[in-house]
């Protein structure tokens, strides 16, 4: 005991910057460039944000563009298309969260219960493969499968006599919403599962043994050991996902977009692209993006506070 105290004291006296550098300079050197990159790509661009207060003209640059104060924000907030985009983004992201968030947890619990390791690994791989497919590919496959009259699914069901008319999976907005959400879940659930499975491996096997000796059945073990064991991971991921409620994924929306579902497909990413970038209005695009980020930040901080109040570790 006394020995270890002494050792600790020694380390503390030596832990100056100079010593740390002398001992681990290779590590710091290796760390230097990732840090520079983070700085360059995540922070160095921040001064560019001033364009939200300007009528930024690409050809004139920052120096030549006019300052307009809050005019861009005023314009955006009074634009009915913006309201439509915000409504759709929030509704679809919450729906995504509602449907998509529990799925990886459920899957992880199921996979964890499997005894046959090879099956577990193979199914895990198959489940997370869609994560690596780009939305462009998923979109075009979905189109081939779900077109109203020539899509594979509808053709098969019509030929089998199950339905008389094709189901408008992609061309009627409510059907589209369901298709869009479920494909999103399918794409993302395998990847989320990996995170939870990793958390599950951190749970001590002794707990399960003790529970089994005490007569706890599988459900009870899952409920009382596995779930509490991954609770902090669940909370962390939930907080991170809440931060994305105002976000949206242009690739996914474009891949599934068509003129018949614009009413729902028109989300913030589409708004930013169409009205901002595509129109050469960088100030507008940036302003909406800033708005998204600020709302995301507020949501993350709020959910973090709530999590902490509920006795969790939180994220920040």
């Amino acid at each position, binding site marked *: 005991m006394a020995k270890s105290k002494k050792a600790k004291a020694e380390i503390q006296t030596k832990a100056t910057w100079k010593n740390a550098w002398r001992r681990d300079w290779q590590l710091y*050197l290796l760390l230097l460039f990732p840090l520079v990159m983070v700085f*360059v790509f995540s922070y160095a661009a921040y001064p560019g944000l001033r364009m939200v207060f300007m009528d930024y003209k*690409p050809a004139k640059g920052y120096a*030549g563009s006019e300052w307009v104060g809050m005019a861009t924000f005023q314009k955006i907030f009074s634009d009915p298309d913006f309201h439509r985009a915000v409504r759709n983004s929030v509704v679809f992201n919450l729906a995504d969260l509602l449907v998509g968030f529990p799925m990886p947890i459920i899957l992880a619990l199921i996979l964890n219960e499997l005894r046959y390791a090879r099956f577990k690994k193979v199914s895990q791989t198959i489940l997370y493969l869609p994560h690596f497919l780009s939305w462009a590919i998923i979109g075009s496959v979905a*189109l081939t499968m779900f077109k109203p009259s020539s899509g594979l699914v509808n053709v098969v069901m019509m030929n089998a006599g199950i339905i008389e008319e094709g189901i408008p999976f992609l061309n009627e907005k409510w059907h589209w919403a369901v298709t869009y959400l479920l494909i999103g879940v399918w794409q993302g659930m395998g990847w989320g599962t990996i995170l939870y499975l990793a958390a599950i491996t951190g749970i001590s096997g002794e707990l399960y043994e003790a529970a089994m000796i005490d007569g706890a059945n599988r459900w009870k073990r899952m409920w009382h050991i596995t779930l509490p064991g991954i609770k902090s991971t669940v909370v962390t991921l939930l907080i991170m996902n809440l931060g994305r409620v105002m976000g949206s994924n242009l690739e996914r929306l474009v891949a599934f977009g068509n*003129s018949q579902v614009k009413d729902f497909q028109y989300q913030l990413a589409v708004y930013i692209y*169409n009205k901002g970038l595509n129109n050469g209005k960088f100030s507008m695009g940036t302003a909406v993006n800033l708005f998204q980020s600020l709302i995301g930040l507020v949501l993350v901080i709020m959910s973090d506070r709530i999590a902490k109040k509920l006795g969790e570790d939180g994220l920040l």
Partner: protein
Amino acid sequence: MKKKYLQKVLAVAMTGAMALGVLAGCGSEPASSGNESSAPSSQEESSEEEAPEESSAEDSSAEESSEAPAGTAGIDGWEPFAERVTLKIPVYDRGDAGNGCSDVVNNYWTNWVQENFGEKYNIDVEYVAITRTAVMNDYAMLAAGQDLPTICMEYDYDKLATWQAEGYLQPYDVEQFKTIAPTYWQTMADNGNDAYTKLAGEDYLMLGYRPYGNSTYTFVTWYRKDWMKEAGFEEYPKTNTELLELYAKLVENGHEYPLSGSKVAGVGVDQNYGYRDYPQDEEIWATTGDYQIPALSTEAQKRYLKWENMLYNEGYKNPEYYLREASEAEADFINGKAFSWAGYVSSTMTQLNSFYENFPDAELGVIVCPDTFIQDETWGSSNAYRPGTNFGMMIALSNSATEDEAKAAMMYLEWMAQEENLFTMTWGEEGVNFNYDEDGNPVAVGDQSGLEQQQGHNNNVDYWCAVTAIKTLGSIEKDIAAINPQGLPQDFYDELLANYNGQVSIWNEGYANSDCLFAVSLESVAEYGNTLFDLYAEYRDQLTMCDPEEFDELYDELSQKYLDQGYQEVIDERKAAFESGQTTKLQ
């Protein structure tokens, strides 16, 4: 000790590698053409263009002009620049629609320009790929990166006006241009295009020539003559009512969705010229008569969409058209599933080559514009069309072009306008890209795929378009012969010529009017143009697919929304410009 040494070396090496990685990321890369089509690329030529730049735009801007053209007017007076000048020229990248050669910014012909023009005058000619379907966006990105090409060019007047208002462009000295590029200027003057150089009161535009600007004979519709004859028609219907009878017969004969169809991908698709009242009302023509912003809310667009609605509801169009790409409609024609297909005529037409490979015995025809004006009683349609103007490409210097670069750009235009250069760029090499026929006229080789000298889209049009919109040999007969598709079982010369003559008659009768041009940049057009087009794409599909009974009511409802979202402002601003005399007049 050794291990520690190794660690140190590895740490330093890895750090170095990462540093290089970061720096490489910061470096500027040449714009990618975004086109990696399957056609073989001419690798041998690439080495020259990859040589490091000898001087950047900034280098030469700081100094006085290094004086190339002086004294004598035209090419004879040119001297090479004392310091290397970089000249950036935009070229369309047509992506899926086909570029011909594999790489639009680096191929046999771009290198030919460098060798024969660039090297001679100490200029690096760099081509910058512009996505054909995203011109404004690409230019905006280049402008944001302070990397606009030396010249900005487009076929649409509105785009140039917007660029001018956004500060992309700089005016030029007409007198200097006349001295450096007398041939080019003379063509402008001979065709009255020197009257259109001004934007916002200053000289900005250098205008390429468009021969036969009063017709659109290079864009035609091919149809299945064999299907038509099978349906009992001897010639192509002249009215829409007759056309509907033909379509009905086609379906009866087992041709499902004979009109195929694809989604509206860009402006210019839903043109209502054939659905207007003629002679046109001048104010309606000036305020809603263009196709850049679809004219939803007008009577002409209503007739057009009603027609579309009927084609859809009668089952002549593919019910999934709004989910389909243009390439799918093209494939339908090539695969014998569609009655017609429209496209630009050129001597090399891969679509027709493929079609005849699939159906060697099929008979195609070209829809010929009747030479007398026909008003369809029920459908209010006619054979009116949208003629162009005498100018093709509109070219302006970008605001970042230095004095030397501006001169180099003018020299480039003049050099390209020289008969021998234009001829080579257009026709290529004798025996490779073209051969002379018995009358001594060049005839392009139909299929150039695989050739080292393979030309770009439509015989390199995207390179020589700066001078002329179409290739011309001096008479319409020769010019049609020159674009007449080669190497096919059928010959379309007569129909192409008849179509041209038909259009010219209609034009002479006053049923074809060029769009109104505005000498001022219209703020509302820049503000709402894109948004309105998006909205139109959504609404026009609703109108096409709605129950015919509900069409009128829905049209009124959506028109009101369209007007509220900015179209009314566009109309008002155009009207004000029209009334204050800042527009062209209806001819």
